[in-house]
């Protein structure tokens, strides 16, 4: 099934992502006690075949925290930590990235950031959104991103990803933060913003 998005709709989704990731950055900043820079989010609406490459090299190793969201908008929040950045973040929190504490620290960062992001979306749109507990996996970027996209690809041939980068100021340490909404839920969101059809 073909689906596409107008520039106006993509602008509105980018603004949603902007407010969500701004709130998440504030949460990360208070966790680490350091200022966080937030990139201007990208609203990517791409053919399925192009979607993974737009996120990164498919064979790159990443640690991902995945938060499924249920409620008025079924979606997945996906945080991607490249290995060096994951190690540095864990270092800032005083844990060893390769230990079980490292993974659970990343998982907790994912949980707090994801919840902050989702909370901001709820406030803005009035949608009832319920995040589920996060899962943390380390694998090939392509395997993670494609499997996330597959959960929502039944109804659409366009992969929609709202992508922001958070960077710890003054350090080579960043993480990529994505909201991957389901097509059906997204129609409701756009309708609430007066941007349906």
């Amino acid at each position: 099934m073909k689906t596409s998005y107008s520039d106006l709709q993509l602008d509105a989704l980018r603004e949603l992502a902007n407010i969500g990731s701004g709130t998440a950055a504030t949460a990360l900043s208070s966790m680490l006690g350091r200022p966080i820079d937030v990139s201007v989010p990208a609203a990517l609406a791409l053919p399925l075949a192009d979607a993974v490459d737009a996120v990164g090299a498919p064979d790159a190793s990443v640690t991902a925290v995945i938060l499924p969201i249920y409620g008025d908008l079924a979606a997945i929040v996906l945080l991607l930590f490249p290995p060096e950045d994951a190690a540095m973040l864990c270092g800032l929190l005083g844990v060893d990235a390769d230990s079980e504490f490292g993974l659970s620290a990343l998982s907790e960062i994912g949980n707090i950031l994801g919840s902050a992001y989702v909370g901001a979306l709820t406030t803005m749109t009035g949608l009832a959104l319920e995040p589920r507990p996060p899962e943390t996996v380390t694998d090939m970027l392509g395997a993670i991103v494609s499997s996330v996209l597959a959960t929502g690809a039944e109804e659409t041939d366009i992969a929609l990803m709202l992508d922001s980068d958070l960077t710890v100021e003054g350090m080579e340490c960043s993480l990529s933060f994505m909201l991957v909404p389901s097509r059906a839920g997204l129609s409701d969101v756009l309708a609430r913003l007066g941007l349906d059809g």
Partner: protein
Amino acid sequence: MTGAAGETIVRMSELSVSSTPGHVLASIGLGSCIGLVLIETSRPLAGLAHIMLPSSNGDSDAPVGKFADRAVPALLEKMVSAGAVRTRLEAVLVGGAQMFSFGSSTNLDIGRRNEQATREAVARAGIEVRAAATGGGKGRTVRVCVGTGLVTVKEPGKAEVELFARAVAAGRPG
């Protein structure tokens, strides 16, 4: 899309066929997706489909490699157009992992459903599955070399391993 020398990357929802000896078809980072390899055993000819979901439910606009029920006949047809004899085709399946557990108790275990749907479609086409590296919880990269029929699989942090090799009879177009 062409990657390293002589390698065609088959991305999500795509399929590709090659009859150039030594050419490699690859799908990088299969998670719940299935990489379906078809090998012609009497000539240098191989195909690869990067299947994302089990059933098209009649959606005929979707990319042809997206759904198992459409991808398998489409790949078969492309192989036959390139000179394959149906009875000399063999299949290898890679992927269908469950990367996350949140779908495990529902029909969201897409990896398992993808494998099942692909096996059914391959069986309907009368093709035998000769080898498979499927299920589990890890991503995989699959490569097939045209001519040697060598299929390799790589999981993260592990060496590339040989999954299947089919010596193809040389110089005897059937």
